[in-house]
C-alpha cells in the first residue's frame, strides 16, 4: 500500500490564494429543512426528466418525482416528505437568469422516507445496476453532473486499469470534498470498492492535493481498515487546476485523454469522491441522491460545510452563515470557474458544490480590458496546452472556424489564462461565447440538413405520385374507351353524386366563414406594421406569387 506512486504532473496551472481554512474549522452540519423546496427537474447532463407528480400529490422523502428521459438522463427525487404545491417554471441556478420546470414541495416536517432497501449489485446484471443508479439519480458531484451510471461502463476493453477518485479539490474556497474525506472516509471507500468491482479496475488511485493533510490521513487510515491493497491514496502537488479530471488522470497515470474521447478507452475512469459516497448511499443504504455537502464561504461571518437538501434556497443556506452586509452576489462554485447566480433565491442543486458569497472587496471588478499583446502568459499556464491568445484573437473577431482550428473545444474553461492576463481580458467569456455560438450553429446545421432531406424526399414523392397518376390515367383512358359505349347509356346520370355535392357545399361554406373571419382576425405578426414593412411584405408576396407561378406544374401534380 505504501508503494510510492510516481507522479506525472501537467502543463501550466496557477497558484491562487486558496482561502480554504475558514470553512474547515467546523464539522459538517445538516442544514435545516426549509419551508419550501424548489427542485428543478433537469439537474444533470442529458435529457430533462419527465415529471411524475402533480400539484396536490403527497410525496415521501426519496420518492422519485422525475423519471429519467432515456438512458442519457438521471432521475430526480423529493428531498423530504410533504405536498407538491406545483410543477412550474422557476428561476434556475444558471447565469442566464432563465426559468425551467421545477417541482415545488411544501415539507410537512415529518421527513418520512420511502421504503429503502440495499441493492445487491453483485446479484444483479451490470445493466440492472446501472439502471438502478440512474433511477437513484446518482450523478457526478464534482460539478459536471454527468450521470454516473453512464460512466460505470468499462468500455471497449471490458476492464479498466485504473479507477481515479478525484479528491484534489483545487478551486479556492471550496472544501466540501475535503470535509467529506475527513469525516466519511470509510463509506467513501466502500463506494469506491463498488465502483472498482463494477468497472473491474485493477487499482484505485485517490488523488488529493497535498494541502489537505487531514483528508489524506483519514483516507489512509480508512484504506488500512478496509484492508484493500488495490486502494492507494496519492498526494498531488497543490496547483490549480489539479482537480480537473483530465489533469488529475494525467498527474496520476501519465495518460492524456483527448477531448471528445472516453477515458475508459485509455483504461482509466475518474469520479469525484462525493460521487463515490453517493454510490455507497444508493447501493448499500438504498437512498437516492437527495442531498449533498455544500461549502458556504466567502463574504460570510462563519464559513462552513452543510449537508443540504436539493431544492433548498441559497438564500436560506447563506443566512445560516451570517453574510456580511456588503454582500453583492452569490456564486455557485469557486472563484475560478463558478457561475454568478441571477438571484440568491435559487435552489441548491446536484451541481452546487459551493455557494460563494461575494462582495466588491472580495472580488473587485476587473480593471478595463486592454488589447492583447500576445505576451504568451496564458499559453504558459494553460493546462490543456492551448494557445489561448490565438483562440481569443479569432473569437473576438467572431471568426469561429479559426478559433476551432486552435482547439477551442479542448478548453476546460479553468480560467487560468484570464487569471494571469496582464491585459485583464475576460478570456473565458470569449471562449464561452464562441463555444455557444458554435453549438448553436451546429444545431442549426443539423436542422438544415434534416430540412434538406425532407425537402428532397418531398420532391421525390411528388415525382413518384406524378408518375403513378400518369400511369393510372393511361390505364383509365384505355379502360374508358372500352366502357365508353356502356357509359353512353347512363349518360343521363348527374355529373356529381349527392355526396360530392354536399362536400362542395361544405367547402364553400367553410371558405365563406373563413372569409368572414379573415376580416376580423389579424394574425399578431402582421399587425401594426409600418408602411415600409408593408411594402416589403407586398414585395415578398409578389415574388412568392411568381415562384408559385413557376412551380405550378409541380403543384398541379398533387391536385
Amino acid at each position, binding site marked *: 500500500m505504501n508503494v510510492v506512486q510516481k507522479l506525472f504532473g501537467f502543463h501550466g496551472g496557477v497558484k491562487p490564494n486558496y482561502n480554504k481554512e475558514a470553512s474547515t474549522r467546523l464539522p459538517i452540519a445538516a442544514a435545516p429543512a426549509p419551508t419550501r423546496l424548489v427542485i428543478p427537474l433537469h439537474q444533470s447532463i442529458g435529457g430533462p426528466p419527465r415529471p411524475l407528480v402533480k400539484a396536490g400529490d403527497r410525496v415521501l422523502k426519496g420518492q422519485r418525482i422525475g423519471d429519467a428521459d432515456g438512458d442519457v438522463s438521471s432521475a430526480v427525487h423529493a428531498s423530504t416528505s410533504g405536498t407538491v404545491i406545483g410543477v412550474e417554471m422557476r428561476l434556475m441556478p444558471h447565469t442566464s437568469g432563465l426559468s425551467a420546470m421545477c417541482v415545488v414541495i411544501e415539507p410537512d416536517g415529518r421527513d418520512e422516507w420511502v421504503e429503502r432497501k440495499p441493492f445487491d449489485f453483485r446479484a444483479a446484471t451490470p445493466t440492472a445496476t446501472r439502471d438502478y443508479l440512474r433511477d437513484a439519480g446518482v450523478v457526478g458531484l464534482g460539478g459536471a453532473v454527468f450521470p454516473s451510471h453512464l460512466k460505470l461502463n468499462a468500455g471497449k476493453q471490458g476492464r479498466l486499469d485504473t479507477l481515479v477518485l478525484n479528491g484534489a479539490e483545487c478551486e479556492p474556497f471550496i472544501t466540501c470534498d475535503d470535509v467529506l474525506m475527513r469525516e466519511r472516509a470509510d463509506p467513501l471507500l466502500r463506494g469506491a470498492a463498488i465502483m472498482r468491482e463494477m468497472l473491474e479496475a485493477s487499482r484505485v488511485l485517490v488523488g488529493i492535493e497535498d494541502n489537505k493533510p487531514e483528508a489524506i490521513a483519514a483516507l489512509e487510515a480508512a484504506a488500512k481498515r478496509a484492508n484493500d491493497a488495490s486502494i492507494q491514496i496519492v498526494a498531488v502537488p497543490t496547483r490549480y487546476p489539479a482537480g480537473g479530471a483530465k489533469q488529475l488522470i494525467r498527474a496520476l497515470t501519465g495518460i492524456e485523454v483527448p477531448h471528445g474521447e472516453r477515458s475508459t478507452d485509455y483504461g482509466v475512469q475518474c469520479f469525484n469522491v462525493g460521487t463515490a459516497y453517493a454510490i455507497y448511499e444508493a447501493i448499500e443504504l438504498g437512498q437516492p441522491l437527495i442531498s449533498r455537502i455544500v461549502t458556504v464561504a466567502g463574504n460570510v461571518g462563519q464559513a462552513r460545510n452543510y449537508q443540504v437538501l436539493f431544492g433548498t434556497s441559497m438564500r436560506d443556506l447563506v443566512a445560516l452563515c451570517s453574510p456580511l452586509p456588503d454582500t453583492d452576489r452569490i456564486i455557485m462554485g469557486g472563484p*475560478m470557474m463558478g457561475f454568478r447566480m441571477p438571484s440568491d433565491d435559487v435552489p441548491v442543486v446536484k451541481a452546487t458544490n459551493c455557494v460563494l458569497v461575494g462582495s466588491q472587496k472580495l472580488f473587485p471588478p476587473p480593471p478595463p480590458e486592454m488589447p492583447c499583446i500576445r505576451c504568451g502568459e496564458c499559453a504558459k499556464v494553460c493546462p490543456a496546452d492551448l494557445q489561448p491568445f490565438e483562440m481569443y484573437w479569432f473569437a473576438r473577431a467572431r471568426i469561429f472556424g479559426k478559433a476551432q482550428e486552435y482547439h477551442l473545444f479542448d478548453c476546460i474553461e479553468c480560467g487560468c489564462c484570464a487569471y494571469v492576463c496582464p491585459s485583464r481580458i475576460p478570456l473565458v467569456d470569449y471562449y464561452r461565447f464562441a463555444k455557444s455560438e458554435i453549438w448553436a450553429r451546429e444545431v442549426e446545421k443539423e436542422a438544415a440538413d434534416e430540412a434538406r432531406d425532407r425537402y428532397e424526399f418531398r420532391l421525390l414523392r411528388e415525382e413518384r405520385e406524378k408518375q403513378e397518376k400518369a400511369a393510372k390515367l393511361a390505364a383509365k383512358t384505355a379502360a374508358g374507351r372500352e366502357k365508353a359505349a356502356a357509359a353512353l347509356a347512363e349518360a343521363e346520370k348527374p355529373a356529381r353524386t349527392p355526396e360530392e355535392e354536399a362536400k362542395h357545399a361544405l367547402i364553400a361554406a367553410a371558405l365563406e366563414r373563413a372569409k368572414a373571419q379573415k376580416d376580423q382576425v389579424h394574425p399578431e405578426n402582421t399587425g401594426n406594421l409600418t408602411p415600409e414593412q408593408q411594402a416589403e411584405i407586398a414585395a415578398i408576396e409578389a415574388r412568392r406569387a411568381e415562384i408559385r407561378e413557376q412551380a405550378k406544374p409541380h403543384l398541379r401534380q398533387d391536385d
Partner: protein
Amino acid sequence: MNNSPYFLQPASVQSVMLRVLLALIPGIAVYVWFFGAAILVQIALASVTALLAEAAMLKLRGKPVMMFLADGSALVTAWLIALTFPPIAPWWLTVVGVLAAIVIAKHLYGGLGQNPFNPAMVAFALMIVAYPSLMSQWPAVGFTEFLPQWQAIFGPRQLDAITMATPLDALRTALHTADARATVAGVLGSSASFGNIGGKGWEWVAAGYCVGGIYLLQQRIITWHMPAAFLATLFVISGGFALYDPTRFVGPSFHLFTGGAMLGAFFIVTDPVSGCTTPRGKLIFAAGIGLLTWIIRTFGAYPDGIAFAVLLMNIAAPLIDMNTQPPVFGHKRKAGGRP
C-alpha cells in the same frame, strides 16, 4: 458584473512596458558616457512625438485616450527608434520615423497588439531606404561636446568634425568597395575606432543593453528562446564563415557587439506582438533574424541588417506560428502541424 474567474493576478500591460523602459536605462547611460547627451535629446523628441501621435490617433479612432496612452507602448517604440537612429540625425528624421511607426505601422492596423510589423523597425527601414546618408552619420567616439550635437539635430549642421560611419558600415564599405586586397584584419587594424571587440564605445553600449536584457529575463517579461536563438545563430554563422575565410568574414564577437545586435536580441526580436508565439516558432523566428542579419550585413547594401531581418521574419511569423503549433493536451502523439 463580470463572470469567472473573479480572482485576477496583479499584472498589467503598463507594468510590463515600464519595466522594458527601465531595462533600457543601463544601455542609455553607457551611450551618453561615450557619445554624449544627444541621444537624450533624441529620446525626448521621439517620446513627445510618439505620445502626441498616439493621442491623436486614439482620438481619431474614438478610443479612450488616457487609458491607452498610459500603457507605455508608444514610449517603448519611441525609445527604440531613438536608440536605433543616429543620435545626431536631424530632428525631422526622428519625427518622421516616429510618425511612420505610430501612425502607419501601429494604428492603421488597430493599435496596440494588432500590428504585424515591429513599428520601430518599420521606422528604421523606411528612413534608411529614404535617407541612406543621413542614417549613416554617427558621432565619433569621445566627441561628447553637446553644442555641435545640438546643432546637428536642430541646425545649422556642421558635421564633418564629429561624424563617422559605424564600425559595421566602415568595415562593410572597406570590404565591398575598396581594393580587392582589403582584409578584415587590415581594416580593423587601420583605425582605433574599431575598439577591441566590436567598435570602440559600442561594445560597452551593447554590454549595457545586455544587462537590461538579463533584467527582463529575470522579470520573466521575455523568455530565453528568442535572444538565445538569435545570438546563437549569429554567433555560429559568423564564426563558421570567419573560420572558413578570416580575411573576408569578420568574427562573431564583432557581429554580436556592434550595431543593433544586443539591443535587437533583448528588445526588438522579443517583441511579442509582431513575432512568433509558439516555443518552436520563437526559436525559428529568432534564428531566422540572426541568419538574415548576417546575410544582409555581409552581402547587402545597407549598413545594418537587423531592421530588415526583423521585418522579413515578421512577414513570415504567422506562417511559422501556424506550422509550429504545440500539440494540445491529449493530442500529443500526433505530429504538430497546421491546427
